[in-house]
């Protein structure tokens, strides 16, 4: 399935819903969208991987890039993922210790240490 990207705003958070396959071919589009959001002023970003059915190292690299960029801009970055095959990818690469991972968008927003959660 092709990559799909949709953005919505929840309070002060920008939620990017990603669907389909994130791989070496499609990851540049994800990188571009994240950069647009950050350059456009988004500082509290949640990427929802709920509809992702494939994620490879290139996609993970893009997500880490966004995390670092937001961190250095004083923002926050979190991922939403509750699928075991994807969670296993984060565990194997030790990226589960790098990203805040949450089962739902609500959980990601209320856990945001930079505030704005309820």
């Amino acid at each position: 399935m092709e990559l799909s990207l949709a953005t919505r705003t929840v309070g002060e958070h920008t939620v990017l819903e990603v669907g389909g396959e994130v791989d070496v071919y499609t990851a540049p589009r994800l990188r571009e969208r994240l950069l647009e959001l950050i350059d456009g002023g988004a500082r509290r970003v949640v990427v929802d991987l709920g509809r992702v059915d494939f994620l490879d190292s290139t996609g993970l690299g893009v997500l880490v890039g966004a995390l670092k960029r937001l961190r250095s801009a004083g923002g926050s970055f979190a991922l939403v993922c509750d699928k075991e095959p994807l969670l296993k990818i984060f565990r194997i690469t030790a990226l589960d210790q790098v990203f805040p991972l949450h089962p739902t968008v609500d959980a990601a927003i209320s856990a945001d240490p930079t505030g704005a959660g309820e």
Partner: protein
Amino acid sequence: MATVKLSFSPAPVHVRTARLVGVAVARRAGVREDLLDEVRLAIGEACTRAVALHRQYGLADPVLVEMSDSGAYSVRVVDRAPIEASIGLAALPPDELAKESLSEDALTTGVGFALLAGFVEDLQVRPVDEGVGTEVRMVWPVDRS
């Protein structure tokens, strides 16, 4: 014994095709259904790595993927890049992953190897027998009962 060979020009768009073919042949060979996600990911990582190396060295040569189901399901992914380029097998520790100084390419390479090593029990990375290049060889058990 059945063998399927696929060779593709080193462009990211073809990696998905290689994954799809690799999983189709795995299923046909009798690889357990619950392993197919890992087969898909591992073949994708091996091909992504090969494409990246060919692009880095400006090589137009095709990447070769060879799938065989004699005994077990084995997949070879062969690149034609100079050998010294491809031995970077170390997985990165978590505190390295988030470091500012680590480039996205380096991170992707490290994470790619972590995924290969983590998902493929029987994995070999070695120089090709003839000419220049490296082969990544992955083997999965098959159930023919």
